[in-house]
């Protein structure tokens, strides 16, 4: 029984995305394919799988990422697919707790990858907004001003997302002061 759900999660909501996928599995739907804002599920036993997402260092089809993915698969997990650099993994819940990271350092590195991705998106939006501002000054076209406004809103939105990731990173950092 195939089921397709359209849903969108922002970079900083990856934890919620994992929770949602686990909840779907608990309800008897396993994720079999992913696309931009599109999730395909098949029926499975309730709670059969647990899910983890990772923003990889390199594009998932590159050799480096392929090596990484096959290493993960050798440990009993399965690679489902990817959306841009985000890789989706599942593991049978019976095989115990599933996590990709077991220390602060690798979790912090993962957060840093998210932060650099968000920084690129932020700067790109900012530059486009600046470009639109220049057009507005030259032409006084209302549409340019509208685009500037849109760009500023996007920048603010992404900025808030960056603070959320940064907050989680700082929390990890402070714990790592005491524990390994």
């Amino acid at each position, binding site marked *: 029984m195939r089921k397709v759900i359209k849903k969108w999660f922002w970079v900083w909501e990856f934890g919620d995305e994992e929770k949602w996928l686990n909840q779907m599995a608990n309800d008897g739907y396993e994720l079999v394919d992913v696309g931009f804002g599109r999730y395909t599920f098949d029926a499975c036993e309730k709670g059969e799988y647990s899910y983890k997402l*990772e923003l990889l260092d390199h594009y998932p089809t590159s050799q480096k990422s392929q090596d*990484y993915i*096959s*290493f*993960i698969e*050798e*440990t*009993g*997990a399965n690679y489902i697919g990817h959306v841009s650099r985000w890789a989706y993994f599942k593991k049978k819940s019976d095989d*115990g*707790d599933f*996590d*990709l*990271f*077991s*220390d602060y*350092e*690798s979790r912090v*590195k993962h957060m840093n990858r998210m932060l650099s991705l968000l920084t690129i998106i932020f700067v790109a939006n900012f530059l486009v907004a600046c470009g639109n501002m220049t057009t507005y000054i030259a032409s006084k076209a209302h549409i340019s001003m509208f685009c500037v406004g849109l760009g500023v809103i996007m920048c603010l939105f992404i900025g808030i997302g960056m603070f959320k990731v940064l907050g989680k990173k700082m929390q990890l950092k402070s714990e790592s002061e005491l524990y*390994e």
Partner: protein
Amino acid sequence: MANQQTQALTEAVFYILLSLKEPLHGYGIMQNVEMMSNGRVKLAAGTLYGAINTMLDKEWITSVNEEKNSRKKEYQITEIGLLMVNNEIKRLNELLENAQKFTGGKIK
């Protein structure tokens, strides 16, 4: 960075090194570490992958019998790796001796 000879190894790195007297692949390391620590230390695959690559770069471990067709890579400890284990044993002994002085040799 402080003198690397006296720096503490992470628990994960130490246990990975202790697992590689004989060649072993990634999943084998995870299972071995969990067994040695009576289930206390559970290495996650992504973290293990990062540690293995760093140790390969530093030549603390080496990748063995790498056949083109065999997907499962096996790793083994090197001379440098053994030296790192020995340094860590000295450091752990020092910690333990001082802790025993503190408690008078009794563990609650």
